[in-house]
């Protein structure tokens, strides 16, 4: 009787193909993005996220064609991220058919980009992606999370919870929060991280990184307090369908769109 929690399959795309890595490296081919998008849509995916992980800018325009093709066939929200540096990049992706654009590294390098893009196109289409890694505060022995950029290669010294708050203030409409420690490990979300951010900000949080089974999705919502859960490999390799994941969540009294 209210808003459903969302299940969002994520497609990491490079050179026109969907790939899947472990801890941000060791990429394996997982298929054609348009075909995979159609399949997830049929299975009841609530949204789709495409992350262009092409390292160089050479093949950057490929993602625009993929988004165009998907947007003409799949009528659910599409978020696209990867290599977004200027408001002009946001415009190009929205014009290709993206509904939201995800900003990661550039949000750290140039926070004004988030403000400018949200001011121009509205907070609802600006997602800030945060890649976070657990660090232990040597003074207090308490657990914290540091923001990393450049696909997880560069430490920033920023605290992930504070950073999320700052991004909300600048105009982000949603946070895509990935635990680098858990990404690709299939050992479940970093629930303490997800909950720390989700309980702090007033905008929706998508939990990401570490899903290996359906219980992990349930935990992300019930213990992590996430508004949406993202998964890739459990869907890409056909272990579970999105529909099965939703049925399982519904059995655990989580409101989903079935």
């Amino acid at each position, binding site marked *: 009787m209210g*808003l459903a929690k*969302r299940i969002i399959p994520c497609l990491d795309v490079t050179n026109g193909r969907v790939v899947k890595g472990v801890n941000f490296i060791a990429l394996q081919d997982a298929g054609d993005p348009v075909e995979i998008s159609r399949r997830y849509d049929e299975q009841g995916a609530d949204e789709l996220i495409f992350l262009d992980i092409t390292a160089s800018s050479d093949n950057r325009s490929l993602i625009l064609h993929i988004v165009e093709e998907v*947007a003409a066939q799949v009528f659910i929200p599409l978020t696209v991220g990867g290599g977004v540096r200027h408001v002009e990049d946001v415009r190009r992706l929205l014009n290709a058919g993206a509904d939201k654009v995800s900003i990661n590294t550039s949000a750290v390098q140039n926070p004004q980009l988030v403000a400018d893009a949200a001011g121009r196109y509205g907070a609802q*289409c600006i997602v800030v992606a945060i890649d976070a890694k657990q660090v232990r505060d040597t003074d207090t022995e308490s657990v914290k999370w540091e923001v990393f950029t450049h696909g997880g290669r560069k430490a920033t010294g920023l605290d992930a919870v504070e950073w999320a708050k700052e991004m909300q203030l600048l105009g982000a409409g*949603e946070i895509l929060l990935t635990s680098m420690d858990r990404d690709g490990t299939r050992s479940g979300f970093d629930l303490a991280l997800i909950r720390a951010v989700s309980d702090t900000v007033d905008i929706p949080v998508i939990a990401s990184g570490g899903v290996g089974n359906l219980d992990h999705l349930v935990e992300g919502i019930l213990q992590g307090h996430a508004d949406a859960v993202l998964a890739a490999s459990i869907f890409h390799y056909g272990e579970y369908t999105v529909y099965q994941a939703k049925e399982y969540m519904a059995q655990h009294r989580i409101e989903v769109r079935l």
Partner: protein
Amino acid sequence: MADIAIVDYGMGNLHSVSKALEHVAPNASIVVTSDPVVIREAARVVFPGQGAMLNCMKEMDARGLRGAVLEAAGSKPFLGICIGLQMLFEMSEEGNVKGLGILPGKVIRFPNLSMVDTSEQKLKVPHMGWNQVHQSAEHPMWKGIAKDARFYFVHSYFVETADPDPAVAYSFYPFPFTCAVARDNIFAVQFHPEKSNMVGLTLLNNFVQWEPF
């Protein structure tokens, strides 16, 4: 002369609306336009909107589209989407801006600091995702759509209607709010039919077929 004109006043992404309409009406001529003449001549008009209502009103006026929009809203099948619904009302708290004043009521913000769900979890703003649309009045636009079907929403403001109440559907977040309104040839929705999969395409198809007069 276009079958369907989608009003473009430079605010956000009209690609999705246009693609979804092309999908349900492959033989119709559908144009995204900021030309008042094209809007005046079109058989049907879709009035979308994204971002802040203050900017939407400004950009609409900067393009000299107010007259054509008012005329369309008074004369032919007219579909407002998201901020396109909000702009039809008298005023919005968002930037304290006057709307078109076609329908009675005002646009206010979700009080997110005090909103929790039944398990005491904080409710976020924007209200983003798939929520149930409870139809409170019969309408040809609801044809083939279940009474509590889920549509995709993304918004931080909603309309508080006044009498004579144009509301035809409501949703809960966590309290009931109006998510669709109708009067004569006008139908407007807070959610995004173009992003609501089959159920959204059904609504758009109903709009393409709708003969209010």
